[in-house]
């Protein structure tokens, strides 16, 4: 069993058994991360370049740590400090990076489809680390890994995704993945952030937290992206919390053993109350740890694809 493409562009493009392969491989890497020596020689001699055209701390550091623990050589290029600021085109930048000898390019870009464009122009493996409002596949994979770890399975679970769905690449990747695995996906938020068109993905839509959270197994909170809220999608963050913030009272509608997830960074008091974020049912920090194992698995498996 192997992956069918040299690139990881999105969950949409993956078959269910490819996702299962990634998750199974990730559990082997999770074992490695528990040891004193958290590094394996698997990809020794290969090079990864992290191309971040949009600010990111947590995804970039997670990828960087995953790369180092696979014994890859790592280079970080941030748009603000590179030739991009001097006007070089995306394709030219990637061709130059390839000429440096990159085997992997981990790409984050504010334009949806940027990694897809690169994948057609370079032979290195492209990994999408978030493109515009399209996808963030490794986040959905680490979320799936965390759900499986806690709940044993994804199939048949009721999973609520709460917040700014329309701007969220995390939500899109998660919807694709959870639907492929047979979960019931509910989207909760104000109509401005959960538009009707999204129903075409086979999900349910709720504008009321109590109704939406009723007997769910998993609550995935999304970050209110203040930088994308210039369009007046809701009156104020205070009002947002009053209606759609996850508080203990609202979380009581979910199943007793339900878990709470958040891709980070959290806005406490805007989308999530501290007592929930720090509570015993929160798996938010597990997600961070699992992110490294899942990203190691993706790179390990992509390294085996030869064209």
């Amino acid at each position: 069993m192997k992956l069918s493409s040299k690139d990881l562009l999105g969950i949409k493009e993956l078959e269910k058994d490819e996702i299962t392969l990634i998750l199974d491989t990730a559990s082997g890497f999770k074992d490695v991360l528990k040891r004193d020596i958290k590094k394996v020689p698997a990809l020794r001699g290969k090079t990864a370049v992290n191309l971040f055209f949009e600010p990111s701390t947590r995804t970039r550091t997670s990828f960087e740590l995953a790369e180092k623990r696979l014994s890859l050589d790592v280079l970080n290029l941030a748009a603000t400090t590179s030739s991009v600021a001097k006007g070089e085109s995306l394709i030219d930048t990637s061709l130059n990076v390839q000429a440096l000898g990159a085997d992997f390019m981990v790409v984050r870009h504010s334009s949806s489809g940027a990694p897809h464009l690169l994948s057609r122009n370079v032979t290195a493996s492209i990994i999408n680390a978030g493109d515009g409002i399209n996808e963030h596949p490794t986040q959905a994979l680490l979320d799936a890994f965390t759900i499986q770890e806690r709940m044993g399975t994804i199939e048949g679970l009721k999973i609520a995704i709460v917040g700014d769905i329309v701007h969220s690449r995390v939500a899109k990747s998660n919807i694709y993945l959870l639907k492929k695995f047979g979960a019931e996906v509910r989207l909760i938020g104000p109509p401005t952030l959960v538009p009707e068109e999204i129903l075409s993905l086979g999900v349910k839509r709720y504008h009321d937290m109590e109704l939406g959270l009723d007997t769910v197994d998993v609550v995935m909170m999304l970050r209110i992206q203040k930088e994308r809220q210039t369009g007046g999608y809701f009156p104020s963050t205070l009002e947002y919390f009053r209606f759609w913030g996850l508080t203990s009272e609202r979380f009581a509608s979910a199943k007793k053993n339900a878990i709470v997830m958040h891709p980070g960074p959290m806005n406490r008091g805007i989308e999530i109350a501290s007592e929930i974020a720090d509570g015993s049912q929160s798996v938010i920090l597990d997600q961070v740890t699992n992110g490294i194992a899942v990203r190691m698995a993706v790179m390990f498996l992509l390294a085996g694809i030869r064209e």
Partner: protein
Amino acid sequence: MSKELLNKQDIDRILARIAHEILEKNKGTGNLCLVGIQRGGVHLAGRLSKKIKEIEGNDIPVGSLDIAFYRDDLNIRTEQPAVRKTSVPCRIDDQKVVLVDDVLFTGRSIRAALDALMDIGRPANIQLAVLIDRGHRELPIKPDFVGKNIPTSMGEVVRVVLEEEGAKDTVTIE
């Protein structure tokens, strides 16, 4: 053409003998642990520990080791190896570790297993037990306990099937 080299009884007798040899060489079960290489080695290590318990009366720790991340052919394979569980239930620092595998061939898996073990801890020593030694070593590796030496040609395939995988115990060559 496939020919049976060992049947269930043969395998059982061999493991009983190896269990005795391990105890003889290590003067009992003190500081001893068994680590099987995925997958066949894991089952054999489990069986050896049962035999050892029958003889000495005490349990010794048994672990499993996956060597996928340590292989030296990751750059030339057309498909990544399946990753299986590594679980070593004890600290191996200063322990006598008996590495168990089903077939010893080029020695490259053992090299990978040695590196994998060294990343888990620093054993007092590492010994090697194999059910079949089929020759053709490409690295300077020599087993301490051998079930059966079988001369083979490079192209032949030695297959070890164990009950734990759902079929009946047998070793064949084809």
